[in-house]
Each structure stands twice: as C-alpha cells, then as structure tokens.
C-alpha cells in the first residue's frame, strides 16, 4: 500500500522528502543525549535526594499532650531520685532532681555514708556533663583498622557483628585480652568484665587511677599482709596530720572528708576544736585550712615520715630502729613536736599521707598503728574500695602491649591515652582496641571500635566505695544518644545479653540481699531504690599488724633517691578539673581554683622567693626541662606558701581531644609522671628557663591582701575559748537615721550566717549556684576581662608573710542589704526590696545602667555583657525551669534562691502548715561539705539562724556602711597561731 498525501504526490509530480522526520536534530550533541524523559528522570531524582537529605534521622518528632497521666509523674512537679555521683571514684550518694523527665539538679544525699550529704563542685557539675552535646552519640568503627581512614558511625548490631568476628580472631591468636579501667567500684560491672574475660584463653582486668594511691595498698600489704586502703574517719579524729594529701580538695573522697573534717571544727563544742596540721610542698586547699602548715620540699616526705614514725614510736614506748635518712634539722624538730602532739592524741588522731611512695606509706601505717588509731580513725575491717588501681599491673600491661603480647584491649571508664605516658605507642601494637568511654577523647581516637557507655544518670549501675556500703545508680532519663550501658555491651559480647537493670538486680539479689536481710527481695529492692544505697555488715576482723621490719629496713637503706635538686616538680590536681576527665565541662573549667583563683589553665607555681631569684613574674612563660622528657612550657604563678624548691604543675590540662571547651586548655603534665612499680608525681628535678613570652592568666582575683581591712576576722582558739565574748566586734548597733521609712516587714525575714571556721573554700557552692541559677560560663577571654558571672564567689586572702601565709576563704554573695545601695540608684526600680528582706532583681525591668553594680560595696552584681549562649539544644536541657534565663544587657545577682523559698512556702501552704526551720535551703547551703552556711527566717525566734545571730563570733562585712546586710559571718577560729592576732580588730574603721 502506498500512502499519498496529495494528488501531485500520487501522480509522481511531487516526491516526498527523503527524511521528513530526521533522527538527528540540527543541535549540539549534548542536548540530543538528554531527552525530555531524562530531564524528568534527573530532576525527579534531585527532588527525591533533596527530600531525603532534608529529612532528619531522629525518630521521634512528636510532642504529645499528656492526656493520660503516668503514675507518679505530674508535669511541673519535681521528682527526686536517690542515685550515686560518678564524678570521681569516691561514690558519694546524691539526690537528683528531675522535672518533666529531665534531670535539673544534683544534691548530696544526707543519709549516705560516703558523702554525708555533701557534694563537691565536680559532683555538682555532673549535670552539665550529662547534657554535653559532644558526647559520643553511638557506636563507631574505625574504617580500616590501625592508622586507618576516618571512623564511621554504625549501629549496634553492626558493631556487635563486627566484634564477634574480631573476637573469634583474637581467640585464634591466643586470646590475650586485657580490660583497662580506672578503679571499678561497681561489683556488677566487675562481674560483667569477669564474664566477658572468661570467654578468652587469657583475660585480665587491669585497674589504675590517674592519680595513683597504689602505694597505700602496697604498704598495707607489707604491714598488714592485705592489699587494702583503710577507710578514714576524720570525724573521729581530734588531731589530723595531712602530709601531701589534699583530702578536702582532691584526695580520694574530698566531699565526705570535708564534711567529716568540719564536724570537728566547732569551737563551741564540748570537746573543743580539732587541730589540723598540714605538711606539704605545694599550697593545697587542705593546707590553706590547716591550723599550722609545715613546708617541705617535694622529695623530703619519705625522710620526714621516717623521722616522724621514729619519734612517734619512741613516744608511745616502742623501740624503733634508728633513723637512716638525714633531714633538715628544722623539719626534724618539727617531726618531734608533731610526734608529741600526735602522742597526746593517741587513738584520736589520724595521719594521712598522699605521697605515692611505698616507704612513706609504710611509715604512715606504722604511725597510725603505733598511735592506736586503727579501728578508731581508720578502719581496716571495712576498707575503702575507692582507689584500687595497681601501678605495677599498669606498667606490665604497657610492656605486654609494647611487645605485642596483647590481642585485644578494652578501655573502660578511663582515658589512658591522655593519662598514661607511653600508652599510645604501646596500645597501637594491639590489633583490636575497643573503647567504652563516653567521650570522643584521646583514647577514643586510638580505638578501632567505640561502644560508648551511657552517662551515669542515664543507666543502672552499682558501686561499693567502702566495703559493705553498696551504692545504686539509677537512670533519671532515657539515654539522650544511641549509647549502650557498658555492662550490657560486655554481656552482649560474652554471649549472655542482659539489661543493665537485670544485671544489677541479680547481683544485689545474690550478694546484698542475703546479708541485708528482709522479707522479700522486692521490698528490699524498693527500699534501695528509694534510699539509693544499702549497708551490709562485714564480720571479718581487721588484719593484724605483721610487718617484716627487717625487710623494710634493708630496702630503705638500699634505696636510691632522686637527687635533691634546687627545683623539684610537684604534680598535683586542681579541685576543679581533677585528672582532666572533666575538661570538656565549662562549668569546671571556669571554676576559679580555690587557691590561685585562676580559671581555664594550668601553670607552674613558684614560691615568691624562687620567682624573685629567677626574676620571674606572674604570667611570664617558663620552660620546664628534664632530660628525656618533653619540655613543659607554662606560665608562672607566684604562689605564697609554696616551698622554695617546689615547682607545682597541675595535671589534667592540655587535652588534645577535650571537646570544644577542653581542647588546648593548658599543657599536659601527665607526660612527666614517672612510670614504674609506683607512679611518681613529685620530686623530679626540674630546670627552669625563662622564655620571652608572657600570657595573661584568666584570674578572678588579682589582689590577695586585705589591706588592713577587717573583712575576714580571725581569732585563735585558745583566746576564744578563754573569752568567747572577745570575738564580739565593736560594731555600730541599731539602725542609722534615714530620710526614708523602713521597708515593710513581711511574715519572714530571711538571713544567712556563714561560719568561716567551717568554710574550706572548696567551691562546691559556686557550681551548685551555677547549676541552680542558670549562670552562664563566659570563656577564658571574658574571665581575663573580669567578667565571670558567678553569683557566689570565694574571696581568698593571704595574711602574714609571703613564705608562710595564713589563708582565709570568704564566700561572698549578694548580702541582701536591708538598706541596699543598689536599690535607690536604679532609675527604673528594677531592683527592689521584698517584705521578706530580699533584695530582688527584676530582669525584665532592668535597662542596664550598671549603676547598681557600681554602687554595690561587695561587687556581687553581674552584668550580661553579651547574649550568653543558651542555644545548644542539648546543653540547654540543663537549665533550671524555675529560673529565668537572663538576656543581654541586664544585671543579675544572687537571689537567695528565691525559687527554692517560694517552692517550700507553696509546699507548706499546700500541706496546711507553717514553714519549718531549715526546710528552705539555698543551693550553696545544700551543697556545702563543711555546712558552713546557715539560712533561715529571723522572724522565727526558735530558728537556728536566730540562735546563730546571737553568736559572739557574728559580724558583718562592711557593716559600718550602714547597708544592713542580711548575710552575717562568724569569725574564723583557728586552732593555732593567727598571724597578727595581737590586734584582732586592727584596720577596721571605728565610726
């Protein structure tokens, strides 16, 4: 069939064009290749990709109204959980406040035997730790093994599968698996580790502590035949001798020790005041509280302890062997004096030594035994399990790893890549490295597999800090990230999966419940969950003393000591940062060191004399050298009270991977810790060479003398005991004439009394206040500009000479003046007086003239210089919903925790009763280990505060200004000499 279109065509007159519909269009190649359909295809794909990438991987995006209530959960009402702090290995019991499913405040559990209701700054800051947006958010596998490409996130099933294969390989190679951790106080976790290691031919758990107290355990092994660390009962001691042990600052259990210590520091008690002497080479928080301080060079401690042990044993009638090591005659005399004093307090004294040296610790054990302190002030029957680290084991692990004799390494609750010099090189020889830490830290960077643990506030765990004292950790909220409890991970890998809660419960059912007794485990468990801990009896008698003295003697005589150099290193830890584990926590980074008042950095402390000899000034950068060690370059801090030979450097700084707040802050001094059977932290000879650089340290207090002003009153105990009325200051009493009528008086009149004898300066109150009141951190530069925001600060002054200064700490907060200078100067009435005696700052009325801050004699007001960040969605979960977050340009200050006052008032009203005395506690008061802060209602004549107001020691800071502060202080009583006591009221103006 022929198709024709026209007659002409049909007749052949017109030929159809050869290619009427040519295949090729007369356009460029490229266009021809992309057809219309292609275009749709590609754009459709693009649309889909855009859609997909715009999606969030998070599952839950629903906000659901709580139509059906849950049992025991009322929106907006606090729930309190008794759990345990894991800021360090001390294991203090805490009560955690939870609101609407999120933890918002941690406080000490008053019933708990370890912390006794105190919670230190680090403990308080665990809240910020929980809401750290930089925590590891899920499991991770290193791309291609050692030194391989970037790590990639995966899911737990993938990780477990990958590890299953890896463990099979390990087993085939010989199954030499090591678990490395800091002290594991959790019996459940230890059991999980044990079960996991059972699966391998040769598995072992190695524990170490970044700040080792291994020597104590070793010493007791030698003297009593048992490797243990005694539990110390400072509350039983009338005389405490601390030797290089910062037991109120950082050593073992600072919060609990602090509270126990303070209980004996009551000058009005029947038994009088306990006495505390500190022998130290640095200037520690504990030393700053001592009634008497003895300065000693870092390397002199073992010799000093030998002399002291000799003198004490002689004093109590034992017949010690002669002394071997020579000692500075002054120190030798001091040892004699101390032996006398110790002898006078036999059975009521306690010697604590923090030097990680076997012989020093053996001498300490001998002294405590000779004085009959065992069973009284230190308990060997129920020893402390807070530090179980074994330096020798760590050392041999490093050797094993370096020699390639370890097939797999698990790191648990530790950051050895930062804390242990030489760890990184050795660990790289281990083919399989698994990290179970929470943070993307130095160790995580080294691991082939990361299986991040939950934060302690997100999971079930237990702990046994003291033998017989069992702690419970319980979760306050669902895990924020895709993490998994370490015990669950270990159980999974051991092939016996079990939830953390089940594991804990099983263990308690097996180990605690039978000893604790009770009708049913259900009831028992219920009680434990409510109280947060259980105490079980330990029947075993304490080990008897059975030292092989001849062995000690021969070792001691044969011992080679480091050369007593002119400059000796002292590596210490700061109250705020401990061993660096909390470097990512800005609250702690910005907490001023209680002694130096420096934030955000570490530095080399030198005594004023040494600094002068070397022509160094505060802020000069100095280079510390020791052959074979990398140089440490640090700014100088001139520290009064330091021994002339001491060069003190804080550990825990210079984190290479410490998060946005911790990375690069300070210099890592862990490299200078000497490894071996016992790790050494002090005595290393140091050469100092100045550099031309200078840095400005972020210090919150630049001036250290009281300038003859009577801001902190101090008095010797002897004088006070003779005549307590002598402490009464000659103060202007009664109201001053005023043009204005007084403020109306309401039902309550709030006031505070701060007992300076009990304040150790530990700064727990500062962080407690920060957590309670949503106080922002401002960063190192802003602190350099003197713009830290803390509402509560600790003023620290030195008295006496530069070489042997007295130190006083004074908590300083808004004094809630009855005749407040800040109130009358505000043009817009943004700061007003309440009828309950509070000076209230109205943030949304404030226009920010700063006149009030200028006119505040105490300088306790803080201005929002910028809009301080509360924008991080994870970090902002830490905000207390009861307290307004302040915006840029407004003034803020201590409110006496008005939200807590209102809360207790509402509670009392709901219950139809009057407010009880002591019911209402400020955050600073609640956290204070020394219980130095008393808060209450002056209108209640029976209240403790009303009684405290009649204390002869009570005085007002700057009371002579007539501002009528509501915060009162009690004169600091020192059980010893007080510098300049001849004129106790010197310097105060007598109007």
């Amino acid at each position, binding site marked *: 069939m022929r198709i024709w279109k026209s007659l002409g065509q049909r007749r052949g007159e017109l030929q159809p064009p050869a290619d009427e519909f040519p295949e090729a269009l007369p356009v460029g190649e490229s266009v021809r290749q992309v057809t219309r359909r292609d275009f749709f295809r590609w754009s459709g794909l693009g649309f889909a990709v855009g859609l997909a990438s715009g999606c969030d991987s998070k599952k839950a995006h629903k906000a659901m109204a709580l139509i059906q209530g849950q049992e025991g959960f009322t929106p907006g009402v606090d729930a309190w959980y008794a759990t345990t702090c894991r800021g360090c290995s001390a294991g203090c019991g805490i009560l955690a406040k939870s609101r609407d499913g999120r933890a918002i405040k941690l406080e000490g559990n008053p019933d708990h035997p370890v912390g006794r209701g105190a919670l230190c700054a680090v403990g308080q800051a665990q809240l910020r730790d929980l809401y750290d947006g930089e925590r590891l958010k899920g499991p991770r596998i290193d791309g291609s093994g050692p030194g391989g490409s970037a790590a990639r996130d995966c899911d737990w099933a993938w990780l477990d599968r990958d590890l299953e294969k890896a463990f099979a390989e390990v087993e085939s190679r010989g199954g030499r698996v090591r678990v490395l951790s800091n002290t594991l106080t959790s019996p459940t976790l230890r059991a999980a580790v044990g079960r996991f290691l059972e699966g391998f031919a040769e598995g072992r758990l190695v524990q170490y502590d970044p700040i080792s107290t291994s020597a104590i355990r070793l010493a007791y092994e030698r003297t009593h035949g048992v490797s243990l660390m005694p539990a110390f009962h400072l509350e039983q001691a009338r005389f405490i001798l601390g030797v290089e042990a910062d037991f109120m600052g950082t050593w073992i259990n600072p919060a609990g020790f602090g509270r126990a210590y303070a209980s004996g520091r009551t000058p009005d008690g029947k038994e009088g005041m306990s006495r505390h002497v500190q022998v130290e080479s640095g200037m520690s928080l504990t030393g700053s509280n001592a009634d008497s301080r003895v300065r000693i060079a870092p390397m002199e401690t073992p010799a000093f302890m030998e002399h002291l042990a000799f003198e004490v044993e002689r004093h109590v009638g034992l017949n010690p062997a002669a002394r071997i090591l020579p000692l500075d005659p002054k120190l030798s005399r001091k040892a004699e004096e101390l032996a006398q004093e110790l002898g006078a307090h036999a059975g009521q004294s306690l010697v604590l030594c923090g030097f990680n040296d076997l012989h020093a610790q053996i001498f300490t054990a001998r002294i405590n035994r000779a004085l009959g302190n065992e069973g009284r002030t230190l308990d060997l029957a129920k020893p402390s399990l807070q530090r179980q680290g074994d330096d020798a084991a760590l050392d041999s692990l490093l050797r094993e790893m370096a020699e390639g004799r370890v097939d797999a390494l698990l790191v648990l609750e530790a950051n050895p890549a930062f804390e242990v010099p030489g760890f990184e090189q050795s660990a790289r020889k281990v083919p399989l490295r698994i990290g179970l830490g929470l943070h993307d830290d130095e160790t995580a960077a080294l691991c082939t597999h990361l299986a991040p643990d939950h934060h302690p506030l997100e999971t079930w765990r237990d702990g046994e800090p003291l033998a017989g004292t069992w702690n419970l950790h319980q979760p306050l909220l669902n895990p924020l990230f895709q993490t998994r409890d370490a015990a669950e991970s270990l159980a999974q890998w051991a092939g016996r999966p079990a939830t953390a809660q089940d594991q804990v419960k099983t263990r308690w059912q097996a180990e605690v419940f039978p000893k604790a007794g009770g009708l049913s485990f259900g009831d028992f468990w219920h009680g434990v969950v409510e109280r947060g801990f259980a105490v079980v009896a330990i029947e075993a008698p304490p080990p008897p003393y059975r030292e092989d003295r001849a062995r000690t003697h021969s070792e001691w005589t044969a011992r080679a000591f480091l050369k007593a150099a002119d400059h000796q290193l002292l590596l210490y830890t700061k109250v705020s940062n401990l061993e660096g584990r909390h470097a990512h926590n800005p609250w702690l980074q910005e907490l001023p060191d209680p002694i130096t008042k420096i934030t955000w950095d570490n530095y080399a402390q030198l005594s004023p004399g040494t600094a002068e000899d070397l022509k160094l000034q505060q802020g000069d950068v100095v280079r510390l050298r020791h052959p074979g060690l990398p140089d440490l370059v640090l700014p100088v801090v001139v520290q009064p009270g330091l021994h002339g030979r001491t060069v003190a450097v804080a550990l825990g700084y210079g984190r290479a991977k410490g998060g946005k707040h911790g990375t690069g802050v300070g210099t890592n001094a862990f490299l200078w810790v000497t490894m071996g059977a016992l790790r050494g932290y002090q005595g290393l000879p140091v050469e100092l060479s100045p550099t031309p650089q200078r840095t400005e340290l972020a210090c919150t*207090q*630049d*001036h*250290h*003398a*009281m*300038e*003859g*002003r009577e*801001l902190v009153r101090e008095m010797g105990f002897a004088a006070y005991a003779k005549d307590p009325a002598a402490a009464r200051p000659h103060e202007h009493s009664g109201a001053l004439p005023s043009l*204005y009528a007084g403020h109306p008086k309401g039902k309550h009149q709030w006031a505070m009394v701060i007992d300076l004898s009990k304040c150790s300066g530990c700064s727990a109150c500062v962080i407690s206040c920060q957590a309670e009141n949503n106080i922002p951190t401002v960063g190192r530069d*802003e602190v350099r*500009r*003197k*713009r*830290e925001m803390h509402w509560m*600060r600790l*003023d*620290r*002054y030195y008295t006496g000479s530069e070489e042997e200064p007295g130190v006083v700490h*004074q908590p*300083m907060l808004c004094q809630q003046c009855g005749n407040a*200078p800040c109130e*009358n*100067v*505000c*043009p*817009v*009435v943004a700061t007003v007086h309440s009828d309950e005696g509070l000076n209230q700052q109205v943030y949304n*009325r*404030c*226009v*920010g*003239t*700063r*006149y009030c*801050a*200028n*006119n505040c*004699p*105490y*300088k306790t*007001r*803080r*201005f*929002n*210089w*910028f*809009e301080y960040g509360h924008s991080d969605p994870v970090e902002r979960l830490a905000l207390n919903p009861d307290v307004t977050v302040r915006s*840029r*340009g*407004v*003034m803020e200050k201590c409110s006496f925790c008005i939200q807590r006052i209102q809360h207790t008032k509402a509670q009392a009203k709901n219950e139809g009763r009057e407010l009880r005395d002591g019911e209402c506690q400020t955050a600073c008061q609640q956290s204070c280990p020394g219980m130095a802060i008393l808060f209450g209602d002056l209108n209640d004549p029976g209240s403790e505060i009303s009684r405290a107001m009649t204390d002869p020691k009570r005085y007002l*800071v*700057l009371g002579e*200004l007539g*501002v009528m502060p509501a915060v009162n202080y009690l004169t600091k009583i020192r059980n010893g000499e007080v510098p300049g006591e001849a004129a106790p009221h010197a*310097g105060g*103006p007598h109007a």
Partner: protein
Amino acid sequence: MPDAAASSVDPALIQGHKTYSQVTEEVFAPTEQAPSKAWIIAVLCTGSLMALGAWAVTQTLTTGIGTWGLNKTVGWAFDITNFVFWVGIGHAGTLISAILYLFRQHWRTSINRAAEAMTIFAVMCAGLFPLIHMGRPWVAHWALPLPNTRGPLWVNFRSPLLWDVFAISTYFIISAVFWYIGLLPDLATMRDRAAGGLRKAALSVFSLGWNGSNHTWRRYESLYGLLAGLATPLVVSVHTIVSMDFATSVIPGWHATLFPPYFVVGAVFSGFAMVLCLMVVARKLMGFEEYITLSHLDAMCKVVLTTGSIVALAYATEFFTAWYSVNPFERYVFLNRAMGPYKWAFWTMVSCNVVTPQFFWFEKIRRSPLLVFILCIFVNIGMWFERFVIIVTSLHRDYLPSSWVIYRPTFIEVATLLGSFGLFLTLFLVFCRVLPMIAASEVKGVLKHGDH
C-alpha cells in the same frame, strides 16, 4: 543703670570702627557664600570622625556593652566620663549667654551665639552617652515618667540617674529655646537679605514674623531676659545633679559633699576652655578677628584662671578630707589615685588642670591666640581625665580587695569618644555656615554710636 556707662566706656569691644552695615555684611557673609575649601576639608575630617563613632555605636548596639572594656567591678568608664565631660563643656555657653547677660557684660555679645550653639551641641553629645551606655537602650523610655500600660511601674525618684534625665532634658530645652530666641533678629535680617525662593520662605517661617518694630524689640528683650533668668540656675543645677550621680553613692572617692560646687566650677572651667579653643580657630578661619578680639580672649582666660584655681583647691580639699576623715577606704582611694596604677591619669589631670591655667596670670599669654589655644586644649584634656580619674580610680579599687581590677578601654570606646568629637565639631562647622556665628543684632548694640 550701670550698663549704659559700661557699653560706652569700653572702646575695644569691637575693633575696626565698624558701621552697622559693615557688621551686617561681614557677619552674614559666610551664610550667603559658597563654602570655602578649608571649611570643606574640615567638615570631611570631622565627618569621618563622626562616621567612626557611628560604626562604634553600631557595634555596641548590635553586640552589646561587652564590646567595651568594662568589667564586674568597673561598670562605668569612658561612657560616663564622656557624658560628664560634654555636659561640662556646655556650661560655658549658658554662663556666657545667661549669667553674663544678666550681669550686663557686653563683651559677651560677640561670642554668646557660638558659645550657646556649642552648649547645645555639647549637650547633644552628652545625651548620647547615657543612652548608649544602657544594656538595653531600646527600653530607654522606661526611665521617663510616662503614663504606661505596664501596670503600676513608675520611675524611681530616688535615683540620681532619674534626676539626670530631668536635668539634662530641661537644660537642653531651655538652652535650645534661649538660643533660638536670641537668633530671631538675625534670622529676620537673613530673611530680608535673602534673594527669595525657599531660603526666604524658610527664614520667614523661622524668624516668626519679626518686623523690627519697637513692640517686637520690647517683647524680645523681655523674653530674652526671662529666659536668661531661667537658664541661670541651670548653670548651677545641671552639674550639681550630675555630680550627685557620684556624691549620693557609697563608693569612696565618689561619696563626697564637695562634689556639687566642685563639678560646677570644673564645668565652667572646661567650658570656657572649649569656647576659647573654638573661638581662636573660628575668628581666624571666618575672619572675625575684629569681633572676637584679643580682649575677649583675655577676659575668658581670666575666667579659666579663676575657675582653674578653684578646681585646684577642690583637689586639695578632697585629699585633705580623705586624710582628715581617718576613713581607711577613703584614704586608700586617694592614695591609690595619686600612686596607684592610674597615677598617670591622675598626674595628667593635675598638670593639665592645676598647672596649665596658672600661665594665664601673664597678660602676654592671655593675648596670644596660639598659646591660648594650646593651653586650653590641655585644660580640656585635663578635664576629661578628671572625670575619668573620679570614675575609674574610685571604682576599680573600692571596698573588697578581692574585686579589685584594672580597666582598659577598647578601641570601640575610644572610637565612640572620637565620634562624639566628630559629631560636635561637624555640628559646629555646619552652624558656622548656615547661621550667623556672631549675634549681629547684639553686636550692633555695643558699637560706639558716636563713630557714625
């Protein structure tokens, strides 16, 4: 009346045997000609400074007061220093125009217009600082007692800052009205000389229908006298109230009953020095040497000498009081001023404010425009430092040594200060061009009538 005699006996008030028309021609010439090159360059310079200041203020407003060097202890520094400085500068204008008017000091006629303009511009600069120093300037109106819907919120009448708000706004309003009323006859002259068009129309409006009649003059004179009477107490009250920002506080170094007279005298001192600086330059640039004569400079220098000496006495009194009080805080503040970390500021202040004016004992120096200019610049520097010393040295080490700090200004603060000078000088330069810098009508009143 003594004034009749006074006006006729001083032959040197205006030099050059001017006739009325000569005065008119010469005084109004700058407002009617194209600007000179020198003027344009000057405006470019001051305008740049102003732009720098505008940038700095923008930084402050967008980022926060944190861009300044203030801290937890020192809450005011450059901001309030600049404020007090500029308020002080303003005082000379009011003193010259009001008090000297009431005392019939006829030599004031050739300088009062410019001095008053200076007052207004200085107060404008001053007013800027309390505004921008606020943490939240967008709610600055809360400091005004405005009826509002924010509940019973009202201002705090006990606060010296509120007194400031009243004092400064009153001062600005009275000064501006006084100045404007004084301008009326000259505005009318300008209107009459204007060729027409917009200029004439605008000047017709602003001269308020001035017709030069006897009635007009009579009303004008009585109003002017009344305003002078109103402005006179302001010379004393404004700086008294400003001083109370400090005097009513509890901060040692601030808390002093001496402050009101001390501040007022200091203000006149700095104000006259500033007038002298401006006049020495302006008379040269604008060719007004015959109107603003060496005798004028001489008379003003005497005021500077007198007030400077009183200021020196005030410094000495402060130190004496501190010693005599036996108050350790007070004593420390003054020792710290003279010997502490800000001693350089203190000694700058003392050398500029105590030593410099003593040169004016010499007539030769009083009559040398160059020396007068240099010395008066020093006085102005000294007076700025006086306020800096009072504010910063008192705050940085007050009661608790734990909070003692050092304050260091940032570039933003320096730029804001420079910017305020830029604003002040630009306004002044514009004023010189668009309005008669010399009160022609008043000058004509003091010409010697017998000469023509």
